[in-house]
């Protein structure tokens, strides 16, 4: 036990004396979560629009100001004719133009129907559709409110889509769990594989193996600090997402942390496995990046929905640990469900951990031959 602690202390010296290691350990996670949260999110915010109001009456102005009231849209310009629409889009700043037909409120008064056209820039198809949906939603809510006031026009059907668990269609809600899964995987696997291969490169691993320490003790001694640090990282990510992105944690905090520890252990065992395969630090880094980072981003359902993938890739995604962890995270954090809803995913992660630890121990022994 004492030997083990000596080992852990030594490992902490390595970590805290190397500026680069510290940067990777703590700088990257914070930067990543902020970048993904703020920039890459597909959330609608401060979209520039132009309005072509051919009617210019009280109601069109009310609708306009209603659209511009929230944080979703801001006014770029008022247009005066159809011919300006295309040139406005050409500038690239304006993502949407709203057109009120002439005599808008008169038509509404006479027939109970008025036409409003939403033209959005679909060069980015997803955003285009999203913007249009948002605008539609706002207009509908205006219609509903004014109906409540007057109460004499028959209620019409509301078509606003409602997103479960993500009512504001907030991108961050999707990105934070994914980013967390990615960061923990990367940090844990990358750092352990690098630190073990470094000992191999420096020749110290040989001396350690020639000492009375058992290989298992060496591995545990090396991995322990990273479990602690990765856990601290997970906490930092959770705090950031809670306070900066207002991401709720609806489920049990304890369960969330336990699942996180399980996932970290899995990532570390992957790191150990990589280090038994890689001959030097460069190779360890290369394998971690190529075999872990890219699949995590592409196949875990983090960015691209798994249901939309070709069948082969869907099968591949099954062996991606982050895929299951993301499901667990979303369940616990957003839906607030308990272990009853995530036991299957938990079991899968547990199984993967056992397999990789087993493989690593076996490979470690072969290497001794």
């Amino acid at each position: 036990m004492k030997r083990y602690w000596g080992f852990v202390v030594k490992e902490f010296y390595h970590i805290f004396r190397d500026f680069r290691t510290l940067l990777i350990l703590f700088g990257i996670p914070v930067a990543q979560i902020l970048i993904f949260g703020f920039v890459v999110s597909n959330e609608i915010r401060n979209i520039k629009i132009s309005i072509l109001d051919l009617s210019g009456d009280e109601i069109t102005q009310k609708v306009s100001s209603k659209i511009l009231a929230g944080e979703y849209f801001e006014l770029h310009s008022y247009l005066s004719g159809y011919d300006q629409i295309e040139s406005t889009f050409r500038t690239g700043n304006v993502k949407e133009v709203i057109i009120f037909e002439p005599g808008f409120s008169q038509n509404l008064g006479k027939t109970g129907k008025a036409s409003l056209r939403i033209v959005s820039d679909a060069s980015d198809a997803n955003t285009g559709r999203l913007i249009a949906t948002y605008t539609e939603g706002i207009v509908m809510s205006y219609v509903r409110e004014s109906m409540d006031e007057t109460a004499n026009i028959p209620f019409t059907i509301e078509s606003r889509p409602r997103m479960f668990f993500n009512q504001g269609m907030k991108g961050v809600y999707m990105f934070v769990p994914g980013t967390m899964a990615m960061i923990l995987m990367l940090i844990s696997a990358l750092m352990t594989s690098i630190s073990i291969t470094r000992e191999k490169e420096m020749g110290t691993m040989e001396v350690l193996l020639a000492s009375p320490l058992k290989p298992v003790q060496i591995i545990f001694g090396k991995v322990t600090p990273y479990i602690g640090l990765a856990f601290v990282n997970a906490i930092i990510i959770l705090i950031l997402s809670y306070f900066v992105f207002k991401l709720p944690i609806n489920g049990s905090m304890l369960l969330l942390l336990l699942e996180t520890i399980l996932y970290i252990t899995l990532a570390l065992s992957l790191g150990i496995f990589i280090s038994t395969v890689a001959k030097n630090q460069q190779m360890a880094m290369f394998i971690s990046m190529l075999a872990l980072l890219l699949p995590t981003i592409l196949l875990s359902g983090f960015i691209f929905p798994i249901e939309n993938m070709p069948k082969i890739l869907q099968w591949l995604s099954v062996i991606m640990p982050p895929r299951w962890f993301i499901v667990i995270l979303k369940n616990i954090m957003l839906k607030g469900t308990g272990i009853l809803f995530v036991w299957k995913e938990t079991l899968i992660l547990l199984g993967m951990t056992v397999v990789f630890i087993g493989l690593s121990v076996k490979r470690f022994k072969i290497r001794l031959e």
Partner: protein
Amino acid sequence: MENPENIIVVKNLVKRYGDFTANDNLCFEVRKGEIFGFLGANGAGKTTAIRILCGLSYPTSGKINVAGFDAYTQRELIKRNIGYMSQKFSLYDDLTIAENIRFYAGIYGLSQKVIKSRTNQLLHRLGMEEIRNRLIRDVPLGWKQKLAFSVAIFHNPAVVFLDEPTGGVDPVTRRQFWEMINEAAEEGITVFVTTHYMDEAEYCDRVSIMVDGKIAALDTPQNLKKSYKTSDMNGVFLTLARGE
């Protein structure tokens, strides 16, 4: 072990990697307290043999006994009773001198008290008291080498294995290093050392020379020189290596 004076007994040691035989039927004994030189060209199988003796690798067949323990069944006990210094000097660059000593002593299970007093003694003897808190990466190579050796014998092992311990070091430092090896041998530690440098072979009590996985000669340097009729070990070595 038949003779209690023998600390290492190797009988018919064979190590094969697939079709390649790295160690072909090695037989030798190392006596307690002697400096045993293990010579050979690169690729002759020295490192393979030393790794097996240290418990870093399994032999394919043969009987091996180190410090009274069997290399197949009592590897843990062997490891407790040996020291090992690799060619890379294997200290941690980002740890200080004192931290390196404490770490390596710690994994051999020495108590804090013993570690502390022996560390002070050691640093005093090496004249490194003033730089005990300096990082290894800022320490000159020669000092690093001495320190690596001192760390390898810090726990008073019965045998210490040195795998090319003088690589890349200047002649003066090598000379000083051999003085340290002599001191350790006088204190009763058996030294098993591999080297390329034939002048170093002269410092050994007995020398074995490996050629192509076999032991081609094993005797004291004087006897070897006599029987091969040359004035230095280099001659012996060249005769053997060409003799193939």
